[in-house]
């Protein structure tokens, strides 16, 4: 009957949300203990990571199973879409905090530090800087690996769209190939970024402690890299589902949600390339 046809699908009780909250509690507790010199925190964090991984498999698994059982029609689909859109909106604001920090430091506080010669005589207040008491370092050049990485991420945006066309036209090979290519490009990007970090730490004297340049550089690119990692994992899950034949031209929010996320991460990178590396 018909609850499915006329009513909104309200899922049964589920153990996963509370388990996830519990896992996050143990993770936070372990982390707080660890950074305060209590090595027991490490074991808390490992246990929590295992629990969170289990929950993610279980929770997403049950949602996928419900979808395959035909529980989600247009009405429910719209909830997922709005939900994902607003989640990405909150992520935009998270990055905005760090970009705002970069602009504030570059345009307001560092120049003012240079103007007030009383405390730090001789400090020029120009960007890039590791501050008046900072260490010497070489800033990251834009037109080497970063430019290549821009090209890689832009290509991955094309390949994920190409995969979407394959889905809409029911060409599974194109869908699977496009997704695999996107994931490969994402991994390539992360590989280059890892190489770049290594280069920065070992040869450029550029690390987290390299004043505000180092702090904004690593925090912005680091959180971006984390999002690429999450996106690549999501795309891998979607690739698995595509191989199993889960998606139809009418019902493929799982694919679209992660594709939106991937495009969002792409746009963040463009901003990073312009404001962190280039200008």
């Amino acid at each position, binding site marked *: 009957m018909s609850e499915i046809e006329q009513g909104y699908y309200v899922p049964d009780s589920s153990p996963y949300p*509370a388990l996830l909250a519990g896992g996050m509690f143990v993770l*936070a507790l372990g982390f707080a203990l660890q950074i305060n010199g209590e090595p027991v925190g490490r074991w808390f964090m490992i246990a929590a990571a295992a629990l969170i991984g289990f929950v993610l498999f279980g929770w997403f698994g049950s949602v996928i199973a419900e979808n395959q059982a035909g529980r989600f029609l247009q009405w429910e689909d719209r909830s997922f879409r*709005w939900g994902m859109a607003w989640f990405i909106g*909150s992520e935009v*604001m998270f990055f905005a905090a760090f970009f705002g920090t970069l602009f504030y430091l570059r345009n307001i506080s560092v120049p003012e*530090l240079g103007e007030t010669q009383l405390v730090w005589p001789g400090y020029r207040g120009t960007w890039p800087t590791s*501050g008046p008491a900072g260490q010497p370092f070489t800033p990251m050049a834009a037109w080497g690996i970063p430019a290549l990485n821009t090209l890689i991420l832009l290509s991955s945006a094309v390949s994920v769209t190409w995969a979407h066309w394959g889905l809409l036209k029911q060409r599974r090979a194109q869908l699977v190939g496009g997704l695999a290519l996107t994931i490969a490009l994402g991994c390539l990007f992360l590989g280059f970024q890892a190489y770049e970090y290594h280069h920065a730490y070992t040869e450029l004297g550029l690390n987290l402690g390299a004043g505000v340049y180092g702090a904004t550089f690593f925090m912005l690119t680091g959180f971006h890299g984390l999002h690429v990692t999450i996106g690549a994992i999501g795309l891998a899950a979607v690739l698995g589902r595509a191989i199993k034949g889960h998606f139809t031209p009418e019902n493929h929010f799982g694919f679209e949600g992660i594709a939106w996320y991937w495009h969002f991460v792409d746009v963040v990178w463009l901003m990073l390339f312009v404001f962190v590396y280039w200008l």
Partner: protein
Amino acid sequence: MEIQTMTTAELALHGSHHAPPKGLMRWLTTTNHKDIGTMYLVFSLVMFFIGGIMILLVRAELFQPGMQIMRPELFNQLIGVHALVMIFMALMPAATGFANWMIPLMIGAPDMALPRLNNWSFWLLPPAAALLLMPFALALFGVGSGAIATGWTFYAPLSVQDGMGLDFAILAIHLLGVSSVMGSINIIVTIFNLRAPGMTFMKLPLFAWGWLITAFMLVAAIPVLAGAVTMLLTDRHFGTHFFNAGGGGDPILFQHLFWFFGHPEVYIVLFPVWGMTPHILSAFARKPVYGYRAQVYAFWVIGVLSVAVWGHHIMTSGMSTGALLYFMYSTMSISLPLSVLFFCWIATLWRGAMTFEAPMLFALGMIVLFGIGGLTGLVLADAAADAQYHHSYFVVAHFHYTLFAGGIMGIMAGVYFWLPKMTGHMIDETLAKWHFWLTAVAFNVTFLPQFFLGLAGMPRRIPDYALQFTEFNMVSSIGAFILGAAQLLFLTVVVKCIRGGPPAPAKVWDGAEGLEWTVPSPPPHHTFQTRPVVGQ
């Protein structure tokens, strides 16, 4: 036949769902908006008392000059944790609890749009509370030096130097932030997608409107706070220099980031109350809500302005004259849409056939006392005057008139208004009226003297003070203890109403309008599985 003895609601339940688990597992695993709303409200009540006991210890210490009952370190911890508990764990969860309970009933939705996410949002709160409070206990075992000791604003550089309690607070903030953002997304999606046919946006009950704008503000502001405390964490433990001038950073940057979140937070706490106020006024004045459209537009204007006025919290930290003027005028301009709300509330009452049951008393008390909070806010918004009042007890009095009188008394109006709907029992009106009068009087005894203390120059966040401030501090402390004791009456009324009392009809109050009054009291576990249609 067993099946014939089942009610329709149970039949519907049986047809599509497994039997829900019993006992603790029911609450841990529930996806039901009423269960989750109840958990939010109970959690909020518990944290309200925990935060209250903390501040009574503080007021006991402040009863006389000199140090009597605690070390200054503990005093510093108690004031900051009191604020974090009251704002993030009492006020916000109470508002979210009502959102969970009432929004689906008001808009004719079968539940919240994302029920499992809803449960996750709630269950992140007890871990956050545990993280925030745990350092008190850890210190007893010789681990760390107690909870966060910087006040709730954790300004750098003090917060960069504080002990491990600050790390616990940062991680608690992260959990609370995830909870708030997920809860907000759920509310936005529910209102966008699950309204009954015919429930257009301009027929949306004002409580839902207030919450919708609240949710927008949360999605915009909370991630910025998350970013700010993350930078604080890396400054503390991973060698970054965001807030350290030696590395080119700036401690004032933290204040900007914090208040970009912190000012919208004020409206985040108050909008749900401003949303429920017209429902209550209209019910007890037996008149339709005056100026519905004007109130919706006022919500929008305040919501948009809220992210553009944060500088008035840090006017004395140093900023250009242009910035001072901008923040002064933009802050003062908020009083225009706010006056629209006040005007509409009063016009709703105008020539109404008013009766003064407990919810109405609390709503009226909220309007009058929050009005004082708003007007003193105008004084503080003046950049020249603020140079005098900043960081004084005037500020403490001001924000308690907004957050206690505007926030908590408003929430209490909502509790008395909707509790009969939730439990199916009427409240003990006599006790509730006692609760109101004791609260209203004791509140003023507590906080009115603090205006004078601030004007006379007493700084806030100080465990000891000059002799000249003694009398007003004594009065304030006596008021605080009466205020605290009066809340035991609140607890009594709530517990009595849950356990029994005269049965409440579907339409608990004669003058109340809206879909939520068409379902029985208490409503069945699942409501509106077939969608109601909203006509003219």
